């Protein structure tokens, strides 16, 4: 397993695509943090109707965990691409020749993606903190960088982003066609989940279902939610949320293990 893991990590470090994703994520998170930090600290007087003022740690959390709330598509894509590349370039053939144990292959892929996911978590979270904190302390109630109420969710946001990469490998294992996997990831994260979350929370009977969606579960793990802080949805508790979130990755990977990864490699 150690050899397989080293091999997987070398696969990451010897390709460039994820670096691009990482850089784009850093820039995008910084940009969103600036926009969000201004919008949550704007005085009611100078904003029109609908502006939401957040105070204290709520404001800080909303800005600092933007990576998980809106940037999770990056590690998710990186994980999905890591697996689907093997099929796209047929590198799965030499990979399975080097070690024919397909569960080891999948396990090493999941673990290595989580390690790389941590890099996404660190970069994404740090850039939203770095861009948002000065604005919060200048215009709002402060940056709250010393408060554990803020730092724990911020640290968990790093973890959550790492798990998104893990989930991405699960997606790629199930949908081995790279283009299809990317389309599904983009469609799900950018349209389906946001719309379904808002839609479900509008219907009383289904409100409970929305918190089991992967994005909601990841926010439950972090303990901060842009949707929730804007009063738009309920979350699970931290531990149940984390379990539901992890289950997404595990279940996808397991289904993939016994379908696509059991098939002939031709």
């Amino acid at each position, binding site marked *: 397993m*150690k*050899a*397989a893991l*080293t*091999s997987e990590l*070398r*696969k990451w470090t*010897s*390709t*460039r*695509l994820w670096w691009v994703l990482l850089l784009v994520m850093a820039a995008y998170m910084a940009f969103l943090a600036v926009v969000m930090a201004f919008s949550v600290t704007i005085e009611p007087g100078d904003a029109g109707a609908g502006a939401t003022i957040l105070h204290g740690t709520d404001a800080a959390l909303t800005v600092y965990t933007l990576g998980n709330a809106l940037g999770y598509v990056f590690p998710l894509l990186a994980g999905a691409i890591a697996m689907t*590349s093997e099929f796209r*370039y*047929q*590198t*799965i*053939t*030499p*990979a*399975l*020749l*080097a*070690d*024919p*144990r397909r569960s080891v292959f999948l396990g090493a892929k999941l673990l290595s993606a989580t390690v790389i996911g941590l890099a996404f978590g660190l970069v994404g979270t740090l850039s939203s903190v770095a861009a948002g904190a000065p604005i919060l302390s200048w215009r709002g109630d402060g940056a709250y960088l010393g408060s554990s109420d803020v730092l724990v969710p911020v640290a968990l946001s790093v973890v959550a982003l790492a798990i998104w990469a893990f989930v991405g490998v699960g997606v790629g294992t199930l949908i081995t066609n790279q283009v299809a996997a990317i389309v599904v990831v983009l469609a799900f994260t950018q349209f389906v989940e946001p719309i379904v979350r808002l839609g479900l929370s509008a219907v009383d009977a289904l409100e409970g279902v929305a918190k089991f969606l992967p994005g909601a579960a990841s926010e439950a793990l972090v303990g901060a939610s842009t949707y929730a802080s804007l009063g738009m949805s309920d979350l699970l508790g931290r531990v149940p949320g984390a379990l539901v979130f992890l289950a997404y990755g595990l279940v996808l990977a397991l289904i993939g293990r016994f379908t696509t990864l059991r098939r*002939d*490699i*031709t």
Partner: protein
Amino acid sequence: MISVDHLTKTFGTVRAVDDLSFTVRPGVVTGFLGPNGAGKTTTLRMLLGLVAPTSGSATIDGRAYADIAQPGRVVGAALEAASFHPGRTALDHLRVFAPQVGVTDQRCREILDMVGLSEAAKRRVGGFSLGMRQRLALATTLLGDPQVLVLDEPANGLDPGGIRWLRELLRYFAGQGRTVLVSSHVLSEVQQTVDDVVIIAGGRLVHASPLADLAAMATRHVEVASPDESALRAALDGRGWAYAPSRDGVRGFEVEGVTAAEVGAAAFAAGVELHALTQQVVELEDVFLSLTGQAAGGAVETTEVAA
């Protein structure tokens, strides 16, 4: 030793490999031959644990590939079609597999040097030519210094110099007592390299023997026809030659193991009028083509001598 035992694989309705059995002995180079779609790649993928057989088995030194602990150290295998990430450099491609094979970066560099790619070590594979990819694929197989080499169409895309280099490499490996199995769809490509041949067509075994035995099947015969059939028979009998009625419907005979000149001389001496006298040469490649059912109308080379 490689042993393929009653191996069968069906893809839906396609029977890609059909009850195939053969063995590959160490110390020689074995050519695994067959036309496109014969089932070579499918057989090798089953041998390497990538494709699950419908029935039968394929083993290396008595073990299934999946049961070999560190297979990269025992078997070096390269399958057709480039399996490279185009964004990775040649050296990084080898470094990716080095941990599982259990070799160092230094070994990766040595192997690149050995296959003539040291100049291209830091270049991305996406920009490689077909021949360079073949060399890199070969480098991957050699990483663990394996006792068994399984190569699918390794000569594809190599220039003549590359083919000669490959031939020498394979002969060198076999000379060290290793087992070498190379597939090809053209006999002439490997004719000078292999000692044994295993020929398949339509997923079935059609011939397995040392190359020399196959070469012995390459014969020459003469087609001869005369309006006076009995006089021609008498002339041929007079020389004690073996002959049979011509297969292509002409009123005449096929005479084995002689030249057209000899038959012509015999007929002339006996005063027999000839209407056809043709030297038929069957080359090794033609034997291969007829064994694999590819022999079309013009496959047998015909030399007109007289008419």
